[in-house]
């Protein structure tokens, strides 16, 4: 009986493997698979739904370009510093190749897109990180672009919105990555003293050096359902404290409960919500 039991398990496992193989074989680009419920949706339909799974409501990661398209009034976006890129300051082996690969993949020069535009006619400076580029990690370029964007917002006296999506500081640029945390935070201090609004939007995932700098410093901190947000990695914490962590640990909901977020906003309500906040601050 015990033997049969194992065979059955094996069979189930095989069926699952076949199933996922079929799913993996679906032509890329045409369909999108939800990483939460595995449901397959037309990419077009997914995009219309702001990359939120129509079946389970899972918020999938989206590119910086898509986020800006969803949020900024058509034809109003002007990108800043598009060409800024890393010069591999530590001469880190293999880093240049990895950058090249991600540049090709994302058509971006680094992990953040910055610029200005309008949200329902209200002007903003905006930065959107893209987790497809080196996991959205922050090196010199990300730090510099964000700092320049903040300085632009100060100059123009308009609000700054930043969507973070990052695994943290970029290891390959060593201590220079670490210092970007101070640089961006110092710029936000300058901006804050001018009485200007900073909205931090912490999207999946926002961890490490990014969560421990500008992402936590919004006048208003917003997140999306179930986004992962935290300082230290789950595995590291489990190793340190030698106990298992609750399932909702470091989710947006966990942070809201612990007083670290102002609100969690479903992506579909993102634009309306931001418009209201911007409007209140513009009067």
């Amino acid at each position, binding site marked *: 009986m015990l033997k049969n039991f194992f065979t059955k398990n094996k069979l189930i496992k095989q069926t699952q493997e076949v199933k996922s193989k079929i799913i993996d074989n679906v032509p890329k680009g045409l369909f999108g698979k939800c990483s939460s419920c595995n449901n397959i949706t037309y990419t077009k339909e997914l995009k219309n739904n702001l990359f939120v799974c129509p079946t389970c409501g899972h918020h999938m990661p989206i590119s910086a370009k898509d986020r800006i398209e969803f949020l900024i009034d058509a034809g109003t976006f002007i990108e800043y510093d598009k060409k800024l890129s890393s010069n591999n300051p530590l001469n880190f082996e293999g880093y240049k190749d990895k950058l090249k690969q991600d540049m090709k993949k994302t058509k971006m020069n680094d992990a953040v897109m910055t610029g200005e535009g309008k949200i329902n006619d209200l002007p903003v400076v905006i930065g959107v990180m893209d987790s497809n580029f080196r996991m959205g990690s922050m090196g010199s370029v990300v730090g510099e672009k964000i700092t320049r964007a903040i300085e632009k917002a100060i100059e123009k006296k308009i609000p700054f919105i930043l969507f973070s999506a990052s695994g943290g500081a970029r290891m390959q640029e060593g201590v220079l990555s670490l210092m970007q*945390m101070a640089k961006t*935070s110092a710029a936000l201090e300058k901006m804050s003293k001018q009485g200007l609004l900073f909205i931090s939007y912490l999207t999946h995932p926002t961890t490490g050096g990014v969560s421990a700098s500008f992402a936590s410093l919004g006048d208003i901190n917003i997140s999306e359902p179930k986004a992962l947000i935290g*300082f230290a990695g789950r595995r590291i914490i489990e190793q*340190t404290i030698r106990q298992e962590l609750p399932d909702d640990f470091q989710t947006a909901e966990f942070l809201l409960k612990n007083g670290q977020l102002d609100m969690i906003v479903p992506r579909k309500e993102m634009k309306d919500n931001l418009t209201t906040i911007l409007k209140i601050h513009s009067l």
Partner: protein
Amino acid sequence: MTKETNVIEELEQIELKIAELKKFSIEQNIDLSDDISSLQTKFKTLQKTAHERITPWERVKLARHIERPTSLDYIRYLFNDFIELHGDRLYGDDEAIVSGIALFQGKPITVIGHQKGKTTKENLQRNFGMPHPEGYRKALRLMQQANKFNRPIICFINTAGAYPGKEAEERGQSEAIARNLREMAGFTVPIICIVIGEGGSGGALALGVGNHIFMLENTYYSVISPEGAASLLWKDSSKAQTAAETMKITPPDLLELGAIDGIIPEVLGGAQKNIPLQAEYIRNQLVKSLTELSKLDKEELIDHRYNKFRVMGSFI
């Protein structure tokens, strides 16, 4: 034993020999000045190579040395009338950070530092110098107080990193660090930061936004621990030694990258060999720095700090 230790042992032997010869020459009234001076030359040459020959990993080991002087050690030698102040007024008192007010060369200052222990018992009490959010919030409270009373802030950095724990996350470790970075940028008093041991990532930087930043000679300052880097890069934490070299984490590296202002020399063999003397080296730098920064007015101090961090980074 490592090469470096051999050099240090050799130096100690020469030093002893010189002392012996001097004693002998006085006692016996014999002129040995030629021998003594040749030994002294040898000592100086060897001393120079000793400082140059030390590897990044050896620096990391010295930075973590169990007998390495802590913030409280330096506070004892550098300041008068030190009064420790406790608590963040929000949650608790984190003993991984020590802070208080004192006099330095007769003038009031606020001093804040990571605090490690030298025994297991002490380390448990100090959580191995790895702060929780309340530690950073205590530091912030003390810095705000310093700002109010217009006294310079001196920060001693010595942590493997902010504590990675469940409660730390619940109480907002990220927010606590981030807020310190922002607030430190806005204070109108001189801030001087000195890495006296480990400069572990964001947990170190949270006391590190200063007008002047120095590192003792045998310390490191890094975005990730050498072990962490090794396990991420090569899935093998035992390659920490290689990572220590690749990641460019030593004082000369940071000076070259423009991340620090200078290196404070260490007594031979590491700061733990002669704490009072090491404190004197730190005192010299503090006096110089405070004199320099006292020439700046409140707004200039903010600008000075801003411009310092503004230029950090490298890109095309």
